[in-house]
């Protein structure tokens, strides 16, 4: 069996996607060594015209792969899929199976997926989600259950627990004996950072003991595009500054900016609890909590989207903060967040246990572990041809076609009922059938 792994030339702009694609690539390479066949990498340009797509499709035809696996979020494969169908049909060749690792932008790109619905029916298609909730979301758009769950892998070499690294980190940032809550990732409205600050301020008010909230990641000004809400560059920083003042947290919050992989590894080791209260609609997985877990760091996460799978895999290490509708948005309950923060604080640190936890996590999320699951996934015998998208997906596409700037906006400015219809399941704990 030969598999062609397809990715973009050069790196993604999105940091988490850079790690995901690189780690998936490594998993495929490992898989190649363990199966009777070969795995080849095929890189494509950032944007492909139909003409370029045809040329690439001819190259692929020559290579005679059994399966093509798309492991990057960009560019969208539509032009290539259209060309592949034409080339394989014209040559009456056996079409390869198509495996799509789906990122958080599936809904955002729904019109592009819709545009190749007929072409996809020519192939055996496997959608792969990184989490159970996203798999259910994809299934809700297809005529048959199409999605399998395979988490985005974390690097076994880059994220592990080390007491030595922990000590160094705590010294570097002068954290002393303080209990350290850590958030890493984008700082954005979408990630509910101000709710995080509010929850931490509730914690600080109730527990006089020494605790710090350490935050690392780039700030962005993406507001809520699905509601048509935009912000000027620099607006997020204004709200960040105002929140720190409002909650009196200037001395308690340490913001470290955008860090590299090595610095993040140190920080995960130095921290005591990872926390993210995001309810972003594209929270299909959570590379930051996955890497934090890789160092054995317990997590407090919002009960939302991809985060729920972490609680499914590691119930002893992940606490889920309930999410409720507040005015126009789904937001985590501050009291519930406080309760779990307090619980982690009271439990304190158990460094021996943390080392064991780190190893257990790699058994499920590590590059090696994931590589073992890719073989069966890419076997065409296990898959049928694509049956098409359903009425819900057509409605979703219509929303994007009619209101590209605010597809989910209701008349009152908040999320409409259609948003609930699409994402309602994201806040429910039940993961459905195990996959």
């Amino acid at each position, binding site marked *: 069996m030969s598999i062609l792994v397809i990715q973009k030339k050069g790196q993604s702009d999105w940091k988490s996607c850079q790690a995901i694609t690189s780690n998936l690539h490594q998993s495929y390479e490992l898989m190649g060594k363990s199966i009777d066949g070969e795995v080849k990498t095929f890189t494509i340009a950032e944007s492909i015209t139909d003409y370029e797509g045809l040329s690439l499709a001819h190259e692929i035809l020559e290579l005679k792969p059994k399966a093509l696996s798309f492991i990057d979020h960009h560019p969208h494969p539509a032009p290539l899929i259209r060309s592949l169908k034409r080339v394989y049909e014209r040559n009456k060749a056996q079409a390869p199976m198509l495996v799509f690792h789906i990122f958080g932008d599936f809904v955002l790109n729904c019109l592009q997926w819709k545009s190749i619905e007929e072409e996809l029916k020519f192939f055996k298609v496997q959608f792969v989600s990184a989490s159970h909730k996203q798999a259910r979301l994809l299934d809700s758009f297809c005529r048959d259950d199409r999605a399998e769950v395979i988490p985005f892998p974390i690097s076994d070499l880059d994220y592990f627990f080390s007491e030595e690294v922990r000590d160094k980190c705590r010294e570097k940032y002068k954290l002393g004996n303080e209990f350290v809550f850590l958030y890493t990732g984008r700082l954005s409205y979408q990630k509910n950072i101000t709710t995080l600050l509010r929850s931490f301020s509730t914690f600080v008010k109730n527990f006089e003991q020494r605790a710090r909230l350490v935050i690392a990641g780039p700030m962005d000004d993406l507001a809520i595009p699905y509601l048509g809400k935009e912000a000027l*560059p*620099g*607006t997020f920083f204004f709200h960040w500054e105002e929140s720190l*003042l409002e909650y009196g947290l200037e001395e308690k919050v340490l913001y470290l900016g955008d860090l*590299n992989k090595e610095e993040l590894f140190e920080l995960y080791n130095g921290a005591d609890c990872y926390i993210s209260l995001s309810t972003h609609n594209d929270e299909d997985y959570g590379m930051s909590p996955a890497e934090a877990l890789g160092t054995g760091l317990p997590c407090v996460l919002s009960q939302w989207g991809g985060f729920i799978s972490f609680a499914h895999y590691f119930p002893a290490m992940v606490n889920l903060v309930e999410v409720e509708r507040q005015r126009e948005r789904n937001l985590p309950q501050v009291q519930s967040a406080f309760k779990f923060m307090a619980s982690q604080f009271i439990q304190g640190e158990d460094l021996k246990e943390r080392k064991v936890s780190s190893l257990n996590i790699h058994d499920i999320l590590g590059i090696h572990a994931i590589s073992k699951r890719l073989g069966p996934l890419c076997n065409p015998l296990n898959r049928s041809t694509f049956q098409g998208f359903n009425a819900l997906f057509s409605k979703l596409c219509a929303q994007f076609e009619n209101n590209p700037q605010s597809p989910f906006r209701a008349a009152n400015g908040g999320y409409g009922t259609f948003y609930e219809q699409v994402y309602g399941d994201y806040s429910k704990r039940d993961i459905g059938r195990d996959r």
Partner: protein
Amino acid sequence: MDEKKNESKNRLLPCYGHNANEETAIFNKRPSWNIEDTIDEKYLEFLAPHSRRYFSRLRPLFSFEVKSLTSLNAFSHVLLQDGVLYLMRFFQRFPTPHGLMSKILIHENLGTLIPKAWKEHILYYRVQGSEATEVSNKKKNLFLYLSFAQFHSDEEAISQLRETLKSYQGKVFVVTNLNILRGEDYLNYDRSFAFNHAHKLFAEIDVEFIDFGNLGSALSTFKLESDFLVFNPYQYWFSDSYLEHYFYNQGISRSPEKSEKFDKGDICESIALGPHHAMVISEDFVASKSTHSFLYEQMQYPHGETFQREPVVDRNIEDYFKVKYSSQALEKLAFSVAKKLRKEA
């Protein structure tokens, strides 16, 4: 919110607290108080991406957008992003601050351009990086943003820039744009300066040209080992560029080649614009004696005869070609002034 605490943060300007935030919010809803007309469109587009809007408690705008001085009274203060040319034109349009209640911030290097009648209404700003992003350690790579427009630079500045580029041991990424005024783009204007400058600048220097749209990708790979430079040697067209804030917000340090004055005494305060940089506000500016004498004594700025021939600012014209904000004579004079200011700085 602890109003007192917030208000105590600033002495020179009311930037914090409920009232200030409300004013800033109104300021940012531009169409509610200042409808964009052909002049605004033409010149904002010409200055893009430097003129891209961004959020600041100091409320930035260009003076050609100001329709009347009294319209600014809705705000305790605004910041003029103008360079030498537009600032001179502004004070030619409004030689006295008649009816104005607000404070106006201008770049500290341009203080010489403030007529005496205006002094009490003016405060000065400069952009300053945090310790981590300031001018201490030179990095391996450079992100250079290079605009090509008439009067933006000259051979002398280009030679200096060339030396700067040569001093970087790693990669030099160059993003360029040719700024052309809409409505005048088809005219047979001389643009050879752009090619001459490019030829002189990049001969035998290995640089990588990148599209503005691909800047994010290059930054995400190289930013931790890079400086940035928004090339603006004479502050002729603008003194405050959106790009500088963009780069700072990426956590990149400014190229050490661009020096700033730091020691301004007690009466100054810092307004953070992002996690890595701030604007420092003061009552003091960089004085330029000989430029002052040239402007006010020789040229009788801003009332003198030279300044009486500026085109009428007609906000009702819709034809981009017919809209002209400043005369060629003023543009040439402003370039001489900009060069003098730089020489004296």
